[in-house]
């Protein structure tokens, strides 16, 4: 069970620190937990783990493909490896290693890809994954998750130790809005209804959850009742919830810090057209490359704002058949 905070302020805990704390907790309980990074330990927040468990932490250098393959081998011998690199490298650069050495081989590898979308900020277009989830979504049986806040991030690590399979976690590295009260629990593969509503459903994850909540407030001021769902699991998509929201609210807006091709909007649209087809407006990156900029500038530039969601909701509602 989760409890949603009354207001979303920036969390005092950075996402990477919540991740590291989760790994330290997990490693203490389970001697098989090991961590690998690809020359980003100074960025990933995993330094405390490397310090505390030097024998169970491996810095693989700037060799991401090798890192993922090593994780597969460790898992084949019973270990529970967690890997980290930036999301751009964690997905497209090692796609075949994830596909063959991990997923097709039915191994147990948990991968963290950090700095999703515009949060890559000053690292710019080379480091700004708008495509990581789309690239990985076509791999059978993989689970794709974008946690929304540090409480969920830390909880997630504990869950992944218990669950067998290949998982990709799309993690904001630094500040994130604080969405959930401490002690909240979740269910992988199930969306969280953060706020009920009857005119439209706003599906979001990651940094877009806060924008969706703001949009819902703006819509409320105009007498529109918006339901907000934190769809933190992109695959497998919660098709049951999508169908229920379609029946109960009649139209959707999806909001993602990602290309709208192949991402959260696509996954929700695929689920909706196979159950209860409804109008869907997609807020997200419209098939563009990244660029250098502050997060606030980039959110404006790519239309990842509450105002975009607000406008999209009105369009979506207008498209409902009377």
């Amino acid at each position: 069970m989760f409890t949603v905070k009354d207001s979303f302020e920036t969390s005092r805990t950075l996402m990477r620190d919540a991740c590291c704390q989760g790994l330290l907790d997990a490693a203490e309980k389970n001697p098989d937990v090991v961590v690998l990074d690809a020359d980003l330990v100074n960025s990933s927040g995993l330094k405390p783990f490397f310090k505390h468990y030097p024998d169970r932490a491996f810095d693989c250098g700037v060799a991401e493909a090798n890192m993922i393959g090593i994780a597969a081998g460790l898992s084949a011998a019973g270990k529970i490896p967690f890997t980290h690199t930036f999301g751009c490298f964690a997905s497209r650069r090692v796609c075949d290693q994830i596909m063959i050495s991990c997923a097709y081989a039915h191994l147990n590898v948990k991968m963290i890809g950090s700095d999703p979308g515009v949060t890559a900020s000053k690292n710019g277009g080379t480091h700004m994954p708008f495509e990581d989830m789309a690239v990985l979504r076509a791999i059978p049986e993989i689970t794709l998750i974008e946690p929304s806040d540090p409480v969920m991030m830390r909880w997630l690590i504990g869950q992944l130790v218990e669950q067998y399979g290949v998982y990709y976690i799309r993690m904001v590295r630094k500040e994130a809005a604080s969405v959930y009260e401490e002690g909240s629990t979740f269910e992988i593969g199930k969306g969280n209804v953060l706020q009920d509503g009857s005119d439209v459903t706003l599906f979001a994850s990651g940094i877009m959850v806060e924008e969706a909540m703001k949009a819902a407030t703006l819509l409320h001021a105009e007498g529109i009742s918006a339901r907000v769902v934190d769809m933190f699991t992109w695959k497998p998509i919660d098709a049951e919830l999508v169908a229920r929201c379609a029946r109960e609210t009649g139209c959707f807006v999806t909001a993602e810090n990602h290309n709208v091709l192949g991402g959260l909007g696509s996954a929700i649209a695929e689920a909706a057209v196979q159950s209860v087809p409804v109008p869907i407006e997609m807020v997200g990156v419209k098939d563009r490359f990244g660029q250098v900029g502050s997060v606030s500038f980039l959110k404006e530039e790519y239309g990842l704002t509450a105002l975009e969601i607000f406008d999209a909701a009105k369009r979506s509602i207008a498209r409902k058949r009377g």
Partner: protein
Amino acid sequence: MAAKPNAEQLHSIAEGIRLVTLQTFAGAGSGHVGGSMSIIETLAVLYASEMRVNPEDPDWKERDRLVLSKGHAGPALYATLALRGYFPKEMLSELNQNGTHLPSHCDRMKTPGVDMTTGSLGQGISAAIGMALAARLDGSDRMTYLIIGDGECDEGQIWEGAMFAAHHRLDNLICFVDNNKQQLDGFITDVLDLGDIGAKFAAFGWHVQNVNGHDCGAIQTAVNVAKNQKGKPSVIVLDTEKGHGCTFSEGVCPNHHQSFTPMEMEEAIENVKKRLIAAREGR
């Protein structure tokens, strides 16, 4: 513990594996004949002499591992495993048939005794490193063996792994390079010249041995030298011939994937049978 087979016995075992491998291909009508033939003596030495395994318990935690990174040589491994008792020989007729347990490239989920899924070249070295690290973490003396192709050394991941294994002093990892001089498109020297493979691994910090890859005694000796190396991973560069011991494959270029007529296969099988009889009679 039973005494290890000697070189002559291993030679006879190898010809037995070669015969069964060809019989396996015969049912399929085509396959990766060349690269399967070149690695057979090494598989004979590993499974009949050097590896600590239990065919009755293929998932035994303390077994030695083999990653056949050149996964297209799966048929040679399947014949070896069947003869070693992992599954009935009759199953070999399933090679590449619909719904098979024996796909053209190795699959750990399908075949008893196969330790890693391979086929996308270059990836096996990393998996083997992971297994070797796990053994070290477990405080276990189990070994990890790895077989890569020479053409496979074109892949950058091989050298990422080579660097990592040396840096971490993985002396529980032994890599064989099947240096059969050919890749799919032709001779290595024509497609992408690798230069001196052993020297490359030595430069990366590995212990290197160059041996005749069709001499079981030499391979057996080299493995034991490698096992006794402390503080660095070992590579054994096998001087082999692609298609070795198969009349329609040896000396042919390219011979990576071959189709054959029933008559060609029959001739190849008869040829191996003669050598096998001679080997069993002590030549």
